[in-house]
């Protein structure tokens, strides 16, 4: 049964799409005979620089490659990068600079929910096509905004749903512990997991919280040990999640540990240590950056050659991979928009992408009322030698 709330939500989304339509017609700001100007907005400094630096590196690599291959419909890409400094006010100022002063055609970014969500209204009213490759707040795409697209990553709502489906399928005792960070990230994630588990039914849920800066989780883990949970979902940032997983193993908790996508980074297992063996994490794609799939190997070699200073930091990482995938998807949209390029045409061409594959991350599908490119995830497992494999089954949030 369709609820009143759902009807209002869809209507709200449609209103956003209609209300902003007039802003794009025949708008070719940032496009000249031989160039298309793109703005790259991301956190290059501050606590969220992990995502912003990946956004810049992945975007730069894809843009350089397409330029080397002759450009897009007779035009080369030109881009300008602005640092949002992991701060919402800086992000808004950076966005306005790209739009009002630099007169870019489209924007690649922003890169963190902390910047992207406060920017939402400004981005929506600007009319500038925005392509987000990394962050995971569902507010950016639900309700859909005409000029904002996201590819690759898995939003928190979908991730919660997928984690719940997965852990419910492996819990023999039908008893699951949710160990979550006490902030909005952990709260939203665990709420989504918990709600879906309640939908599934016949599952006992126990919940514990921790602060992102904590270093000792003994009391929470002891309480989980006293429950009869056989699966523990850890929903938090990488650093506290790593300690939780290590201490859970040290305390001998008889649980299968499943982390959020925050724990799916390439260096995570080394951070946890040998206790990481056997733990699992949600991941947005079946391709690992260290994997041997043909496109991934090509990407990794190109990345390492172009950014040797990042390669020595054990990169490319998932963020570099998602950004490169996003940039290639945006490039595909620009190609399909044709020589007579306008913002309206780019939006229409992106809307036409269906199961678009880059071989780097999960396929992208957009539509007239769909701005979330990827709605599926996989489960990653850390082996005894701390190498990683992706389990074959894909989980869909649809």
């Amino acid at each position, binding site marked *: 049964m369709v609820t009143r709330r759902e009807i209002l939500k869809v209507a709200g989304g449609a209103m956003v799409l209609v209300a902003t339509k007039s802003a794009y017609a025949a708008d070719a700001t940032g496009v000249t005979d031989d160039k298309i100007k793109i703005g790259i907005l991301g956190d290059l*400094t501050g*606590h969220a*620089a*992990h995502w912003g*630096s990946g956004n810049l590196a992945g975007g730069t690599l894809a843009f350089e490659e397409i330029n080397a291959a002759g450009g897009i419909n007779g035009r080369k890409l030109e881009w300008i990068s602005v640092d949002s400094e992991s701060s919402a006010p800086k992000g808004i100022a950076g966005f306005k600079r790209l739009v009002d002063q630099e007169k870019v055609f489209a924007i690649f970014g922003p890169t963190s929910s902390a910047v992207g969500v406060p920017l939402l209204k400004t981005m929506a009213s600007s009319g500038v096509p925005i392509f987000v490759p990394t962050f995971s707040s569902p507010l950016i795409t639900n309700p859909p905004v005409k000029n904002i697209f996201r590819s690759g990553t898995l939003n928190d709502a979908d991730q919660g749903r997928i984690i719940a489906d997965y852990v419910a399928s492996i819990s023999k005792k039908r008893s699951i512990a949710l160990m979550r960070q*006490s902030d909005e990230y952990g709260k939203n994630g665990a709420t989504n997991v918990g709600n879906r588990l309640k939908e599934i039914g016949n599952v006992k849920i126990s919940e*514990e*919280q*921790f*602060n992102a*800066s*904590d*270093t*000792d*989780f*003994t*009391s*929470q883990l*002891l309480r989980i040990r006293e429950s009869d949970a056989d699966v523990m979902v850890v929903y938090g940032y*990488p*650093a506290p999640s*790593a*300690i939780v997983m*290590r201490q859970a193993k*040290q*305390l*001998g908790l008889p649980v299968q540990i499943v982390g959020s996508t925050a724990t799916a*980074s390439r*260096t*995570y297992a*080394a*951070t946890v*240590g*040998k*206790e990481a063996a056997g733990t699992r994490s949600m991941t947005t794609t079946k391709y690992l950056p260290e994997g041997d799939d043909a496109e991934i190997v090509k990407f990794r070699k190109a990345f390492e050659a172009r950014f040797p200073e*990042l390669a*020595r*930091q*054990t*990169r490319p*990482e998932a963020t570099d991979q998602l950004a490169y995938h996003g940039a290639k998807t945006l490039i595909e949209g620009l190609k399909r928009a044709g020589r007579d390029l306008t913002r309206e045409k780019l939006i229409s061409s992106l809307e036409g992408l269906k199961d678009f594959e880059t071989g780097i991350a999960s396929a992208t599908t957009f539509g007239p009322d769909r701005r979330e490119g990827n709605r599926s995830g996989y489960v990653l497992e850390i082996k005894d030698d701390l190498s990683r494999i992706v389990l074959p089954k894909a989980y869909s949030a649809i």
Partner: protein
Amino acid sequence: MLSGAIAGSVYALIAVGLVLIHNGTGVVNFGFGDQLMAGVYILVFAQQFLGLSLPPAILVAVIVSGLIGLAIQYLVMTPLRNRPVLIPIVATIAIGAALREGIRAFMGPNPWPVPFLLSTSPYRIAGISIVPSDLAILGTAIVVMLCLYAFFEFTKYGQAILAACANPTGALIVGIPAGATTTSIWVLSSMLAAIAGIVIAPLTSLTPDIGLIAIKGFAAAVLGGFASLPGAVVGGILLGIIEALSGYYVSSAMKDIVSYAVLVAVIILLPSGLFNRATARKV
């Protein structure tokens, strides 16, 4: 209790470093957390890029951190020595930000694994799980603090520093050079920052933002009176234990709130901290 004491011992190391600088120079070093972070990155750099094994890498990290302290004293604090105290305090914030963002640019924003000092495999003794790597944190903190105690109590140099901290003018009159004393304090405190970082970073993983843990060190220092070295040690251990107990008996999400509520209560009821005597001033 044990896990609280382990966390508390790190807070104590940080608090001692902060109190030392404050006592000796009047400056509250808001860049201390970033110096802690820099010390661990030096260790990682020495291991990953210079190929050193852990013990010499630790030595390199502690020595280079001391040199950073020396540079801060000579390049920043000495030129600012006659300015209002607020200026050098703001300078420590700037130094911290420069270290943090410089390292983020050079070593990247992603976490680096840091080796544990001892094994992470637990031993079970009488039903209690003992993790050697956790004991290494506590043990290192105790050894460092005993060394500091011996240095200040039994060496002339240590006593000179304490004398200069307690009464800079008096120390000058009896021939203790103020410049050398403050330099020693900056070097010693910076080395303490590196040691605190090296013991805690394996547990937390290393990112440019690990220095935020110094906030707990500030709290411990305030609890102990911000002028007393033994007070800083007890303040740190006490804070760690309060955190652990409130996490277990109240709520894990509330443990920071409970800890800081205790801190506020101490400030209100004992403005000079738990271990610092109120001083009367003649006017």
